[in-house]
């Protein structure tokens, strides 16, 4: 019984770690973009300040909203943080009696968060909420099959979709990269852009009603509710980056619980996240936003790459 | 074993017919009509019990009732009772609407009973000549009944009916002559009762196959015309649609079956004489053609009674298919289908008659909202339509199941496939037409009168038999059918 308590406490600790690190990664990405555009940009800790400000402010709610509207921020944050608990960051979460860390469950939790957000947006009853929800769901359903295919192409080698076991097995292979891995990584990177709402698919910084996807849904939320959702967005971004890291760069996962092992794992994780956020910064600064009905072709490219990865792996 | 019931049974309705000529009041005629029909049914049940106890009974050297005859006897008895009960209410309605003239009622009832009498003689006759004469009698009486309304269409239908069926029956007579010649030749010219079916079927295996083959072809084309087998069926929709409703019910329910009875008689002879493939093959061919030819006419039909006429062609085709598939299973299924179709078709004709009376038109496109107008009759119409189309809780599905099983047992997959395809298309057509009639809301022209009691009584009787046979074949009926299969299967 105590093993389970230890495992649950470890999982909670990891969730807290990711929640804390989430806004930091966004701050780093914003800082990186600013630097590339030769301007100073806000400090790396700015997202934390925004969150605290929001938490302290009062709530302005639409008069037509139903109880769903108030419940949505809480549920979205909970779903995203639960997903954070499943991703192998410093150690393999599924080690103990209770198996955590299944990829399909993780993707499904993120889908749940997206579904709740869309429903919340429709509740407020404006045009922008509906448009944002419709576009977000459309992008979401185009991403999911490609995401599944790339996860399968990796899972086929390990014979399981549990990220912990997969990471452990791939670590044994020690960086022996084959063509399917490269194709799958490329597909995952394209999908990461779509999932985190970055430039080619959606512009996170804009507030122009007609162009924003993800932002459109947050329009009506305010105060602590908005804080929960923004925090959830940051955590989601970090979860996806760590998912990519776990699937393709499984180095440095701590085996035991010794301080040295954890420190090494933390360092390796930080490096991986920095590399990926660097990729995000590069893409955001060099591309323009695609017209919405060109996004399916863009995601189609991702789907074809994932399909080829699986084909090469299986045939 | 001689039984005097055999010649009394046809005599009773014939005498009643003559008596009715003298009676004038409608109420008395209707009462006599029902009484006589009940008497006929009682007599047929008595004969059935006698046959079950003693096997085949004969009388006067000319009449004979064996297992096969009993099935058709019971059907004719049951239908004549149902029709006469329905006629009471129907006639009052028709006279009220001026369709039937009061002074010619006695002719109508007399002709109906003469028609029933001739059908009984057909089924009871052992002598093939008497069978032909009775068949010609049914043609004459029913031709007058078809043309009874005296309007242009009625007379045209009567004319086509009498000409085409008389040609058909004359072919039947020539076939009988040929078979009689072959029988006389086989017996070396000795004339002892050579015309009787029982004696011919006794020596059937010794008959010369060549002449039996030609004779059987004349018989199947001849009596097939009378039965409505395609492609010689064209008179049937005209006659059945123009005749008064009770007469159509009798025509479709009973008369077609008597023609099939004659074909079965000759089929059993031909089976022994020239082997099973010849006559079964012919029957199969005619059956399949009937089902295929009836399909397009059912789909694009607008006239309700013509639709039911073509449906009779299809079901005669199914019976012929059953006989064609042969073997005890096929014949059992065909005979069961004879009873099932007789009952169901009579019910649907009575309900259709009631509907046409209410709407004053026969065009199905203008008969909307029948369920709203007459809920009981509407439900019965739907039940009847589903039964005709072959859906399970009703009787026709059971007999079609047996026929298809016989078909598959005989390894004839192509005919079965064609048959099932046509049945499904006909199902779609029939339910489409009846659905259009039953649902929607009735126009203002429709008559919302109370539903007369006696027609409903008759319809409930027939519907009860239909549903009963759909779920449960009583042991007694099973014995009768098995005996008949023994006789017909040869």
């Amino acid at each position: 019984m105590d093993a389970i308590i230890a495992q649950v406490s470890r999982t909670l600790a990891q969730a807290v770690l990711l929640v804390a690190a989430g806004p930091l990664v966004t701050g780093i990405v914003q800082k990186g973009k600013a630097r590339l555009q030769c301007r100073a940009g806000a400090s790396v800790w700015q997202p934390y300040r925004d969150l605290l400000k929001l938490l302290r402010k009062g709530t302005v709610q639409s008069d037509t909203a139903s109880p769903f509207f108030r419940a949505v921020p809480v549920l979205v944050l909970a779903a995203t943080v639960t997903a954070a608990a499943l991703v192998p960051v410093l150690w393999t979460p599924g080690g103990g009696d209770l198996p955590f860390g299944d990829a399909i469950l993780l993707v499904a939790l993120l889908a749940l968060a997206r579904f709740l957000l869309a429903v919340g947006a429709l509740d407020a009853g404006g045009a922008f909420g509906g448009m944002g929800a419709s576009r977000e769901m459309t992008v979401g359903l185009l991403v999911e099959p490609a995401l599944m295919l790339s996860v399968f192409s990796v899972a086929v080698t390990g014979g399981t979709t549990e990220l912990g076991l997969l990471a452990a097995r791939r670590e044994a292979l020690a960086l022996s990269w084959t063509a399917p891995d490269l194709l799958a990584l490329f597909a995952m990177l394209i999908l990461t852009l779509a999932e985190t709402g970055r430039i080619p698919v959606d512009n996170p910084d804009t507030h122009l009603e007609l162009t924003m996807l993800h932002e459109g849904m947050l329009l009506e939320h305010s105060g602590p509710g908005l804080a929960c959702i923004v925090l959830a967005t940051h955590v989601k971004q970090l979860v996806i980056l760590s998912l990519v890291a776990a699937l393709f760069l499984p180095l440095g996962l701590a085996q035991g619980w010794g301080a040295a092992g954890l420190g090494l794992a933390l360092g390796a994780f930080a490096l991986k996240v920095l590399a990926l956020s660097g990729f995000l910064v590069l893409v955001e600064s060099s591309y323009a936003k695609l017209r919405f009905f060109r996004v399916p072709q863009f995601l189609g490219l991702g789907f074809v790459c994932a399909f080829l990865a699986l084909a090469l792996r299986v045939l | 074993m001689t039984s005097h019931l055999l010649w009394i049974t046809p005599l009773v309705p014939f005498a009643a017919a003559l008596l009715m000529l003298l009676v004038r009041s409608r109420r008395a005629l209707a009462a006599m009509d029902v009484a006589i029909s009940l008497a006929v049914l009682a007599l047929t049940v008595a004969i059935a019990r006698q046959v079950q106890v003693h096997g085949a009974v004969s009388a006067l050297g000319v009449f004979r009732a064996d297992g096969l005859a009993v099935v058709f006897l019971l059907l004719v008895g049951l239908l004549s009772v149902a029709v006469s009960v329905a006629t009471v209410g129907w006639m009052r309605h028709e006279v009220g609407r001026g369709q039937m003239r009061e002074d010619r009622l006695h002719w109508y009832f007399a002709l109906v009973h003469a028609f029933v009498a001739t059908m009984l003689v057909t089924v009871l006759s052992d002598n093939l000549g008497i069978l032909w004469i009775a068949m010609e009698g049914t043609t004459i009486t029913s031709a007058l009944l078809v043309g009874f309304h005296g309007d242009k269409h009625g007379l045209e239908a009567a004319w086509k009916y009498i000409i085409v069926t008389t040609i058909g029956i004359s072919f039947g007579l020539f076939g009988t002559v040929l078979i009689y010649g072959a029988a006389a030749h086989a017996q070396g010219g000795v004339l002892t009762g050579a015309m009787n079916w029982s004696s011919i079927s006794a020596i059937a295996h010794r008959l010369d196959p060549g002449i039996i083959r030609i004779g059987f072809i004349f018989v199947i084309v001849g009596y097939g015309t009378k039965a409505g087998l395609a492609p010689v069926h064209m008179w049937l929709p005209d006659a059945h649609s123009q005749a008064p409703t009770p007469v159509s019910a009798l025509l479709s329910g009973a008369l077609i079956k008597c023609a099939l009875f004659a074909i079965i008689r000759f089929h059993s002879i031909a089976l022994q004489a020239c082997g099973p493939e010849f006559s079964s093959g012919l029957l199969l061919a005619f059956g399949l053609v009937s089902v295929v030819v009836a399909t397009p006419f059912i789909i694009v039909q607008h006239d309700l009674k013509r639709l039911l006429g073509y449906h009779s062609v299809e079901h005669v085709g199914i019976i012929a298919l059953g006989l064609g598939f042969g073997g005890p299973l096929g014949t059992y299924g065909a005979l069961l289908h004879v009873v099932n179709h007789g009952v169901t078709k009579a019910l649907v004709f009575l309900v259709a008659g009631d509907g046409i009376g209410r709407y004053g038109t026969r065009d199905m496109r203008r008969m909307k909202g029948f369920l709203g107008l007459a809920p009981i009759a509407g439900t019965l119409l739907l039940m009847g339509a589903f039964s005709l189309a072959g859906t399970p809780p009703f009787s026709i599905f059971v007999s079609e199941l047996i026929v298809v099983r016989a078909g598959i047992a005989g390894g004839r997959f192509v005919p079965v496939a064609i048959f099932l395809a046509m049945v499904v298309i006909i199902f779609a057509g029939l339910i489409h037409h009846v659905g259009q009639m039953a649902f929607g809301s009735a126009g203002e022209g429709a008559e919302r009168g109370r539903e007369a009691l006696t027609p409903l009584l008759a319809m409930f009787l027939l519907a009860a038999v239909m549903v009963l046979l759909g779920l449960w074949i009583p042991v007694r009926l099973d014995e009768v059918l098995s005996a008949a299969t023994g006789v017909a299967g040869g």
Partner: protein
Amino acid sequence: MRRVAVWVGHLSIGVAAVLVAIFALGFLTGSAPAAHLDLPRLFPFAAMSLSVDGLSAFFLLVISLVTAAAAMYAPSYLGAHAHAPGVQTLALAAFVVCMALVCCAGDLVTFLLAWECMTLSSWVLVVSDTRNEENARAGLLYMVVAHAGTAALLVSFLVLAERGGGLDFPALRAAAAGLDPSTRTAVFLLALAGFGAKAGVVPLHVWLPKAHPAAPSHASALMSGVMLKVALYGIFRFAFDLLAVPGGPLPASWGWTVLLLGTASAVIGVLLALQQHDLKRLLAFHSVENVGIILIGAGVAMLLGGGRGPAALATLALAAALLHTLNHAAFKGLLFLGAGSVLARTGVRNMEELGGLARRMPWTAWLFFLGAVAISALPPLNGFVSEWMTFQALILGATRLGASGLLAGVAASMLALTGGLAAACFAKAFGVTFLGRPRTAHAEHATESPAPMIAGMLLLAVACVALGLLPGWAMRLLDRPTAELLGGAGASAAVTARGPMILAAGDATAGVGATAISVTAVAALFALLAALAWALRGWPRRAPRRLAPTWTCGMTPSARFDYTGTGFAKPLRLIFAALYRPRREILKETGPSPYVIRRLSYQGEVVDLAETVLYARVKHWIASAAHEIRSYSTGRIHGYIAFVLVTLVVCLLLFARA
């Protein structure tokens, strides 16, 4: 007086359903042998009997679950909305009894009789509103497709019966053992066509979205939730039981056919569902999708069964299919009852005329939301569990199937696409119907449904949550069917090896590779974190809450601003234009100058390809052939006589010679 009769009728149906459920549960968990009951000899040529084994008991459980809920729901629904409630009660009773009989039929004749009576009684329910001609046409198409299916079934059954001599299932089983492969495949394909027509598999699904919405909502719930499952029972009975190759795997072609049909049904079903505005039509299309998902599970089970793949995986796949059958019955029933309560209170089925019902009908809204989350296969609820098991079966199976594993992979990605599409569809359905401003007076004055209707929905909601949180116990129910159909250990051994809380797919010991999740633990974590987040939001102090109109660029917001269902689904209409072939016409009434628009009317339409290409063409061809033939029959008597003469001469020429 009639109301009392309706209540008593439905009460008796409900009680009977509960009794059957208890019997089924007892049978599934116990180890009693297959119960056999000989019926009285109705027909001389066939001995009719009933026999209940694991598979039929499981399907009885499915039937009784939804029937109990529908029985609670129906009386108050019929009160407000009834045409001839007496007839409907009888038809509902007959419908449920026939479905139960089909599942426990022991021989061919009982099966066919019960099968068609089920169709007929559900037809009565579909056309119960006799004045509406649209229902009559829907009922007609339903009956015709069902009848064609039965004809196919009839032939496949009788071909088996001929070889086996008897009409009961043991004789059929014996006959099937001796069948040569080509006949066996022919019989299976015929049976698949027959059952597929009834289950709504893609090419034959056209009747389903027309017939199900026409019936009263509790009947639609039963038809969608349960009747499709009875058709799937037929497929399971044929594929795994009657036509099973003794001791060998089923032919691979069968598995692939079922898998591809399932994938096609899933994707096309949900794509078409997305474009519907009628709430009940949308749910009916979703039935097509979920039948597809069940068939994917069944297809994988057929591929891996009988020794071709590892037994544990085959059992997993079959357990996934059966569990999804139960799950779909639960949440589809819940959704249809929810849609019914909306229809009962507002009298409107079209989403575009509803909106803002969440505040007026809180209970129905929350229960419909729960159903929506379940059907979109999102984690805490039962939809996710069975879809997760199907995923695992596909992926782990793919490794075993060698090269053709790629096809399984693609099927898995299509399944994911279906999940995504379902989530989008139900976000639209729930959002547009329940949230935002009420668009018409109907929605404005809606009030909450009476208690029995809510109770009916609550029963199914509890079932969804229970199956979602504690799937381990559900595995015990699947033990007997999976053991009987695939041999080997039952479902619980294969899936809940590591205790009831954990779902383990495949077993690591046999080197098959294994994935395990503990849905209960994740749900607990989710609840804990939700509580934490709720505390976080309310933590500093009770933040003041002010109500203000929604931001619509400064204009006073009205219901016209709300996003419509059509708008929501527009991006997908463009992306999948090839399948939809969308057609629209926009009428503009401009004022003095072309830029002043006085009135704008939009009329858009999405075409169901199967319907236009397949059905319309066949119908047209038959009708024109019929008109062509009919034109030959002139009324002239000379034609009649000529036909008699020609027939005689032809027969003499053909048949007369020896």
